[in-house]
Structure formats: structure tokens, C-alpha cells
């Protein structure tokens, strides 16, 4: 018998506030990104896609790192709460990855002249996306809760290796994609202060959206676990 804890995650009192905070910060971030931030001297206004593309990419990294930690948690403790955390974070991470790939593609067309190119950063990102889609599909192969959670956790631990590969691919190989602008070694962010502030607020907004989604998705997953035979809430 596998047991879950009774109150494993912020419940009714926190979730509505988190959602409200996420919505308000998203509105502020969108205003700053589209109106307040100055036009880029080189790219013009199309650079404004950075304010959704980059935060979504960072949050996808975070989401998949959470999958890694939660997968280790399941393998070490067999507590189903960790499995709920892993699948919830993986699902939000896949959503964010899909969206930042699409936003990046829309940004690429006017700046690079193509929607897609077989660039190291783009290819490693596509591999990351497919690995975590595979993670979600893998979970549907078994109806046995413990077996499914263990198989998924093993993949969740292995797949995290692609995150540093995606981030550092632009340094390791010749790439059309620009080098890291903010998270770069040996220097401060190469970004105008106003642009940097707008990007910071956008990161805060998407972080709140991530945690709001994670809380909602976990509540659903924990509810499912309670309904599964052999998993007692």
C-alpha cells in the first residue's frame, strides 16, 4: 500500500491568490514589454518577443529540474506526492517549451529570414521537448501506479542532462542563435537597464504562472491518486 500525505501542497487558501497575483503581474509585464520598454536599435520592435521567449525558456528549465528532483524523491521515498509533483511540473514544462519554441520561430522569421533552421540550440531544444512529451506518454503505458511512477522517474532523472546542453549549446558549437544575454559566465547582463527591468518583471510573472499552474495540476493529480486502488490519501 502506498500512502500520500494528507495536505501535501498549498490548498484552497493559497491557490486563488497565486492565480490572481499571476494574472496581475502578467498584465503589468505585458504592458512593460509592449509599451514601456524602448525599441531596440538593431532589431526594432520585434525584439519585444524576448519578453515572452526568454522567461518561458527559463521556466521550462526550472520545470524540468523540478521533475528531476521530484523523480529522485519518488525513487528514494516511494511517496506518491513526489510523483504528482513530477508529472505536474513535466506537463507545465512541456507547455512552456512548446510555446517558447513557437514564439522563437515567430521571432526567427523577421530576424533570421526562416521559421526554423537546424541550429544546435534549436535542435537540442526540440530534443528536450520530445523527451518530456515522451515522459508524459510513457506514463500512459502502465496502469500499475508504482511501476508507472518508477519508469517515469528514471526518465525524469536521465532527461535533465539536456538542460545544460540546451543552454550551453550556443557556446559549444557554431550557432545562429544569439549567445546568452543574461545568464552568461564572466560578465553582467548585456542588456539596457530598462529592458533588463522589463525582462525581470516578465520572469516574475511567468514564474507566478508556473507555480499557479503547478498548484492546480497537483491538486488534480493528488485527487486522481486518491481514486486509484492501492494509493491511499
Amino acid at each position: 500500500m502506498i500512502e500520500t500525505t494528507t495536505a501535501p501542497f498549498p490548498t484552497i487558501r493559497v491557490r486563488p491568490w497565486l492565480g490572481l497575483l499571476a494574472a496581475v503581474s502578467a498584465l503589468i509585464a505585458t504592458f512593460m514589454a509592449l509599451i514601456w520598454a524602448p525599441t531596440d536599435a538593431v532589431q526594432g520592435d520585434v525584439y519585444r518577443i524576448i519578453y515572452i521567449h526568454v522567461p518561458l525558456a527559463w521556466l521550462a528549465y526550472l520545470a524540468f529540474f523540478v521533475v528531476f528532483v521530484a523523480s529522485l524523491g519518488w525513487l528514494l521515498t516511494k511517496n506518491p506526492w513526489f510523483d504528482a509533483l513530477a508529472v505536474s511540473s513535466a506537463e507545465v514544462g512541456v507547455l512552456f517549451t512548446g510555446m517558447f519554441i513557437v514564439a522563437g520561430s515567430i521571432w526567427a522569421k523577421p530576424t533570421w529570414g526562416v521559421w526554423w533552421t537546424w541550429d544546435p540550440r534549436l535542435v537540442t531544444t526540440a530534443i528536450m521537448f520530445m523527451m518530456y512529451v515522451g515522459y508524459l506518454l510513457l506514463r500512459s503505458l502502465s496502469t500499475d501506479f508504482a511501476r508507472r511512477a518508477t519508469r517515469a522517474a528514471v526518465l525524469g532523472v536521465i532527461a535533465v542532462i539536456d538542460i545544460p546542453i540546451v543552454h550551453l549549446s550556443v557556446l559549444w558549437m557554431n550557432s545562429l542563435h544569439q549567445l546568452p544575454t543574461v545568464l552568461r559566465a564572466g560578465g553582467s547582463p548585456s542588456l539596457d537597464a530598462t529592458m533588463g527591468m522589463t525582462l525581470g518583471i516578465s520572469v516574475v510573472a511567468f514564474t507566478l504562472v508556473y507555480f499557479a499552474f503547478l498548484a492546480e495540476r497537483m491538486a488534480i493529480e493528488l485527487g486522481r491518486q486518491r481514486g486509484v486502488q492501492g494509493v491511499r490519501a
Partner: protein
Amino acid sequence: MIENLGFIVAAYVLVWGGIAAYLISLRRRRGS
């Protein structure tokens, strides 16, 4: 006239539309 306005709008609509669609999906799953 803002240059590449269509690309900017398309990117923002897709991202925030995707977020709204996922939110609706979560609410439906929570309700079922």
C-alpha cells in the same frame, strides 16, 4: 507604423492564448 507588428502580436496571442487554453483545461479536469 510599428515594423513587424504582425509577428509581435502573433507571438503574444499564441503564448497568452496557450496559457488561457491550459487554464481552461485545468479547470475542466478539476471539475470532472
